[in-house]
């Protein structure tokens, strides 16, 4: 497994600075979560890793190799990518969606067929039942399972995930988070994960990087962030899930009190 290294990476749009000389290292096999509010630069940072967005300055290495040393399409075939809108190809079947990157890499049909079934089973979709379906026949949760299978299909060195569970209902989201976590642990794949949901960040991240206006505010394990928040705003951010829980708790107690 390869590590991802960002060194003084910047991106501006006109006068607006999206990412400001950001340096960051995702260790091999680690899941690093990028959190922050809207406009904090977390999605821009993620997309610069597979060059969906080209950085203005700085360098990015995956497994010690500069991402700009080869054409972008070749690079992207070695990187899994999963995003909120899922983006399954509606004119292709589930199996064909999963097979896209292996096909681009020139795998043999036999190898691809075996890989499709293996991945569908991994994301807990019965291959026999789902292989030939159209994406439009699947629920949102099932679609994102296929999205995840597609991202993992070509045995990527690293995985980029941009709020992959953001559009799902809470119950589906939880099931998928758990399934994803166990898959990732089993495959030991290096993952950069963007979310604005602090609960998700705390639940999934080995480490969490808090961004604000394109710059790194704090980097640490969930425990470190909870124990020693670097700023007032980080403290507020990491406390969000707890505040939620307390509010729910208060409601529950009020409901249990005899009227």
């Amino acid at each position, binding site marked *: 497994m390869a590590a991802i290294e960002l060194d003084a990476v910047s991106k501006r749009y006109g006068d607006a600075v999206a990412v400001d000389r950001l340096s960051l290292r995702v260790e091999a096999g680690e899941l690093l979560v990028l959190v922050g509010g809207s406009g904090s630069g977390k999605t821009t940072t993620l997309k610069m890793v*597979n060059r*969906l967005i080209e950085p203005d300055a700085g360098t990015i290495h995956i497994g010690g190799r500069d991402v700009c040393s080869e054409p972008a*399409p*070749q*690079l*992207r*075939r070695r990187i899994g*990518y999963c*995003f909120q*809108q*899922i*983006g*399954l*190809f*509606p*004119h292709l079947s589930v199996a064909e969606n999963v097979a*896209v*990157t292996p096909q*681009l*890499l020139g795998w043999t049909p036999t190898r691809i067929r075996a890989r499709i079934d293996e991945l569908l089973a991994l994301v807990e979709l019965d291959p026999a039942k789902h292989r030939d379906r159209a994406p439009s026949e699947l629920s949102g949760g099932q679609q994102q399972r296929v999205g995840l299978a*597609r991202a993992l299909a070509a045995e990527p060195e690293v995985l980029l995930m941009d709020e992959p569970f953001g559009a799902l209902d809470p119950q589906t989201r939880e099931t998928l988070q758990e399934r994803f976590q166990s898959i990732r642990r089993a495959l030991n794949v290096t993952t950069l994960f963007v979310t604005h949901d602090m609960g998700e960040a705390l639940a999934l991240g080995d480490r969490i990087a808090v961004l604000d206006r394109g710059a790194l505010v704090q980097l640490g394990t969930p425990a470190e962030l909870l124990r020693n928040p670097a700023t007032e705003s980080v403290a507020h951010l990491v406390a969000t899930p707890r505040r939620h829980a307390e509010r729910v708790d208060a409601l529950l107690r009020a409901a249990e009190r005899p009227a």
Partner: protein
Amino acid sequence: MNDLFALLPEYAGAHLELSLAALAIATAIAAPFGIAVTRRPRLAPALLGAAGVIQTVPSLALLALMVPLFAVVGGFTARHFGIEIRAIGAGPALVALVLYGVLPILQNTVAGLRGVDPAACEAARAVGMTPNQSLWRVELPLALPVLVAGVRTAAVWIVGTATLSTPVGATSLGNFIFSGLQTRRFAAVWLGCIASAALALAIDRAIRLLEQGLQQRRRGFVWASLALFASLVAGVALARASVAPSGTAPVVTIGAKSFTEQYVLADVMAGFIERGTGARAKTLPSLGSTVLFDALRNGEIDVYVDYSGTLWASVLQRSGAPGSRAAVLDDVRRTLAAEHGVSVVAALGFENTYALAMRAKRAAELHVETLSQLAGAAPALEIGADYEFLSRPEWRALVDAYGFAFRKSRSMDPSLMYQAAAAGEVDVISAFSTDGRIAAFDLRVLRDDRGVIPPYDAVVLVGSRLARERPDVVAQLARLAGAIDAATMQRMNAAVDQQGRAPADVAREWLDAHPD
């Protein structure tokens, strides 16, 4: 009716061939440009604007404008590369139809590609597709339904507009419609309309099947669509075979303007040539009147009938007092031979002059018998004229001489003009003196008391190629001199216009009555 159905395979075959070729070329041009527009958005305003401007040109005008354009281009290629390009026929019709079909396909290609879900495009990049792979594997398949809808729109437009290619000399189902309107055979008009609508629907259906088949991956649909296209193309081939059984190309091409007398005379001449010389003759009816003389001079047709006064005013561009019938004819004969290489081989023996006519009763009420008297009454009257009359030199000469100032003037189809006069919808019309409807509708021709309108002897014109290569055909045509008098012509015109007979029938009757 049977004579109409006999022509159906030829007309429908030519129509289909022209339409499918135009549709295929329009798609081959518009789809790549549509793709280019979405790759380079800066091209969009210029390309879509240009296609839009073409669309605003009325289709009939677009077709007609191709003829002089082709003549210029053809002259250039003939001079510099020795390549002959015909200025009339399928060439100009095809180019005009292609231009007409480009816009809907271009617009829908752009709309289809722009409408592709951005998430699918992002996914295509993210999984490692190159821009080309993304276009072919994701964007085009997803844009296909919209693109195909554009092709279907273009197909229906092209098949419909192809009926207008008759006046530029391309055979199509429009031949039924144009000649039917002129000769008041509405069965022919209906046949042309229904057949072209059926073709449009068949092509539309075939494209739709192809799209559904590709989209839903149903081989049956794709095969059905291909079978439908194949049967259409086979239909063209069969039509071809039935039209040219002998396989010999016609030797003589006879042109005709778009009115009854011209259809009858073209058929008379064709039969007369074939009977006397054995040369195969083909008629090219319903050509625009200005197209004809140029087509004869360029050698695209060999023979047609024109009128001495028309040639004197329009081609020789003479004005002033025309002089006697013989003097005008002589002037025309010598000038055409010297300046245009066109021979006047026979004067048929009748005049078909432009004349102003009124309902007899109305003329009596107003005490109008001459054009001088008409000028006095004109400010209260409305004149109806065929498309070209009001812009012809004869009309300007009449206005100069008599000082006409009508309350209103309108252009209309010559076949409807007489009826409009009879019904009192217009007061005065520009009639043709040989038209059988003058008598039938009780109209009165007003006397040209100042002798402004030149004489209009019907003359057979022959181009230089035929004169050089087939002197026997020219000699045979020369025997038509004086063969048809005004009464005969009027009777033949009335047989078509009043009794609904086919021009070819009427011509055959004349030939049968005049054995060599």
